[in-house]
C-alpha cells in the first residue's frame, strides 16, 4: 500500500512539465458537463465492471479451479479442465456443430432476408401485411420454434407428407434426427425464426439508398442485375456486416431451439456449447468444466465482436 503511494507521487514529480499541461487539459474535461456526465455514468460503470467484466474474470478463474461436485473447490489446477475439454468427444462434436450451424444459419438468413426485402421493395400491394407476416416468427420464442419444428420434422407425419403428396416419396429425410446432418435441420428451424428480422434490416437499408443513385445507374445503362451487383449490394455492405455479427452471435449461443428439438440428439448430433455447459454445470455439478465451456463461448464471441467494434470505430472516424 504505502509503497504504491510513494511510486505514484514519485512518477508525478519526476515528469513535471509535460504532465502539467495534460493535467490542465484533464481539468478542463473535468469541469462542467463532463463531471456531470461522469457522475451520471458512474453507477452504470460500476455495475458493468462488476456484473459483466468481474463475472467474466470470475468464470475464467473458476475454469482453472477444481470445482467438480456440489462442494465449491477453488484449488488452482491450471489448464486441467481445458485439456479435458479439448479431448472431450462431445466438445469436439459441439465445435463441428457450431461451424455447420453457423454456415447454414447465417447463409439462410442473409439469402432469405435479402430476397424477401428486395421483393418487398418493389412497391407491391399489401406490403405492410407481408412485412408483418415475414417478421412474425421473430416474435415467437425459441422454445416454441423448437417444439413446432420437432413436430414438423417427424419423418412420417411432418413436412415429409407434403413431399409424399407431391409424388416425391423417395425424398424422406429424418431431419434433426439424422446422425450426420441433423444440425443443418436445426439451422433451418432457427433461420425460419430469424430471417424476417434480417429482412427488416435489409428493407431499412434499401429504403436508405437514394433514388438518384438508382436513376443515375439506369441512365448509365445498368440493368437490374448490374444495379444490384454494383450499386445496391455494395451499398448494403454495412447492413450485411451487422446481420453477420447478429446471426454469428446467435450461432454461438444457440440453446433454446436445440433443447426443444431434443438435444443433444443421438450421438450429440445437434448438441450446442450452451446446452453442454448447462448439463455439465447443473446436471453433473462439474462447475469448472462448465466455466471452461462458457469461456470458450466468450472467446468465440470476442472473435466476432472485436472486428465489428473496430470497423465501427473506423466508420465513425471517417
Amino acid at each position, binding site marked *: 500500500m504505502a509503497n504504491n503511494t510513494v511510486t505514484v507521487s514519485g512518477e508525478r514529480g519526476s515528469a513535471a512539465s509535460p504532465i502539467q499541461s495534460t493535467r490542465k487539459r484533464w481539468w478542463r474535461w473535468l469541469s462542467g458537463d463532463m463531471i456531470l456526465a461522469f457522475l451520471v455514468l458512474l453507477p452504470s460503470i460500476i*455495475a*458493468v465492471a462488476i456484473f459483466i467484466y468481474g463475472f467474466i474474470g470470475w468464470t475464467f478463474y473458476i475454469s482453472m479451479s477444481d470445482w467438480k461436485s456440489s*462442494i465449491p473447490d477453488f484449488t488452482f489446477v491450471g489448464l486441467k479442465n481445458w485439456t479435458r475439454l479439448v479431448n472431450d468427444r462431445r466438445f469436439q462434436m459441439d465445435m463441428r456443430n457450431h461451424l455447420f450451424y453457423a454456415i447454414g444459419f447465417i447463409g439462410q438468413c442473409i439469402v432469405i432476408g435479402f430476397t424477401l426485402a428486395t421483393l418487398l421493395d418493389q412497391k407491391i400491394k399489401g406490403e405492410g401485411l407481408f412485412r408483418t407476416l415475414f417478421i412474425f416468427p421473430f416474435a415467437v420464442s425459441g422454445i416454441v420454434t423448437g417444439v413446432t419444428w420437432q413436430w414438423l420434422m*417427424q419423418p412420417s407425419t411432418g413436412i415429409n407428407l407434403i413431399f409424399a403428396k407431391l409424388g416425391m416419396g423417395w425424398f424422406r429425410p429424418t431431419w434433426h434426427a439424422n446422425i450426420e446432418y441433423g444440425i443443418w435441420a436445426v439451422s433451418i428451424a432457427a433461420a425460419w425464426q430469424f430471417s424476417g428480422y434480417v429482412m427488416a434490416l435489409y428493407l431499412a437499408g434499401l429504403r436508405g439508398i437514394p433514388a438518384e443513385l438508382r436513376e443515375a445507374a439506369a441512365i448509365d445503362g445498368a440493368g437490374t442485375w448490374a444495379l444490384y451487383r454494383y450499386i445496391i449490394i455494395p451499398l448494403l455492405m454495412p447492413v450485411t456486416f451487422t446481420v453477420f455479427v447478429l446471426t454469428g452471435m446467435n450461432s454461438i449461443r444457440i440453446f433454446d431451439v436445440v433443447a426443444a428439438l431434443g438435444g443433444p440428439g443421438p*450421438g450429440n448430433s445437434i448438441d450446442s456449447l450452451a446446452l453442454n455447459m448447462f448439463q455439465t454445470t447443473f446436471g453433473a455439478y462439474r462447475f469448472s468444466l462448465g466455466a471452461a465451456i462458457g469461456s470458450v463461448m466468450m472467446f468465440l464471441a470476442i472473435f466476432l465482436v472485436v472486428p465489428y467494434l473496430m470497423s465501427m470505430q473506423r466508420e465513425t472516424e471517417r
Partner: protein
Amino acid sequence: MSGTEGMSRRSFLRLLGVGTTMTVLAACAPAAAPAADAPAADAAAPAADATVADAGKLEIFSWWTAGGEVEGLNNMFEIYKRDYPDVEIINAALAAQGAGQGGEMKALLETRMIGGDPPESFQVHLGRELIDSHVVADRMEPLDDLYASEGYNDIFPADLMSVILYDGHPWSVPVNIHRSNLMWYRPSKLEAIGADAPPANWDEFFTMADALKEQGLPGIALSGTGGNGHTMESVILSVFGAEDWPKLFDGTIGWDDPRMTQALEIMNRLYDYAQPDYLSQSGADVNDVMMADDGPLLMISGDWLHGYFKSKEFTDYTWAASPGTESTYLLLSDSFGLPKGVKNRDNAVNWLKVCGSKEGQDAFNPIKGSIPARTDADPSLYDEYQLWAMEQWKTQTLVGSLQHGAAAKQSFLLDYDLALNDMVATRDVAATQAALVVAAEEAAFGQ
C-alpha cells in the same frame, strides 16, 4: 483547415461519448434489471407478511407440473392449508423439459442453495441424488428428531430406511415409491403372434420380436435421445440380478465386467426392434407411440405410465416386471428435505410432517400413480396396479434406481446417459463400455 479538423474531432468525440453511453446502458440493462426488481420485491414482502399474520411463507420446489402429479401435490397443499391457514404457500414448480428429470428446477435450486437462499423444502430423489448434491455439501439438516417424534423409523420399511439413512441420519421424508423395472405390454400384440404370456427374459423377447417383425410390427418402444437410460437399467438389472446390482455402485464390481458387455449387447440389439422414426422421438413421444394401432408389443417404463394410459382412456395394456427381473423392485422415491438456513423453519418442518403423514401420502399417491412409502396406507383408495405393487413391495428385494437418482451421483448419471446417447448413433458396444468404465472411475464408487 484547422477549424474543420477541430470540428470533426469534437464531433467524433461526441459520437464516441454517445456510443459509449449507449453501449454501457445496453450492457447494463440485464444486470440492472434484477437490481431494480429487488427493492420492489422487498417493498412488497412486508405487506404480504402483514396480511398473513406473521406466519410467513412456505416455498416448495418441485418438477410436478403434469397431470396427476399436480393434483397430488395440490391435495397435500390443501391439507397443509387446512392445518396452517395463516401460512402462504408458494408452489415453485418448474416443468421438467429436457436435461433429465427436473433439470431446470435443479439448476434454479442449485443457484438458490449456493446463494444461501434456499426454499423451505424441495423435491429430490431419495438416495445419492440428495446425498451427493446437497448432504455432503453440508446444506441439509438431519431429521432424526422428526423421525423420532413422528415414528417414521417404524412406519417406513426397513429396506427403505437403509436408502434413507446416510451417515446414520435421515435427511429427507419420502412421499412415494415408484417402480422403474416394469414392462407395459399389449395383449392384442401377443395374440397377433400366438403367444399367451409376456416375455420372461430377453431371449424370449427377441423370439417374439422376430415374429412381430415378420408382420411389420415393432417389438419395443424406444426413444432416440434422453429416454433409453431407463430401459437400459432394467436390462443391466436382468443380467446382474438384485444381489450384484448394488455392487456396481460401491466399487465391488467394475463396469468392465463381461456381464456389462452382455447387457450392452442386448440394448444394442433392441434398437433393431424399435418403432420406425424412434430417433426423432423424445421420451414423452414414446408414450403415444405405445398406444398407436401399429405400436410395439411392449415398452419399459416406470409406473407413472399407468396414470398416463388411464388419462388417455387406453385399455389395451397390462404390466409385469421387466424381462428377467421379476423378484426385484427397482425403486425410486420422491422426498422432501430441510435445507439449512431456511427463513421459516417451523413451516418447513410442518410441511415435512404432512409429507410423511398417512393422510398426506394417501392424498398424494392414489392420483400420482405411485404407492405410499408408509406401510399403513388405506388400500381402499388405490387402484389395481397400485394394490399389485404394494403386494410386490412387501415381498421383493428392494434396490435403488440408477436412472432416477437413487443408486449413483448425478455426474455419473449424466455420463451414463451420454454414453447410451452415443451408442444410439455409433452402435458400438465396446466404445460405450469404455466410456462407462471411465465414468465409473471418475465417480470413484466405494471411496
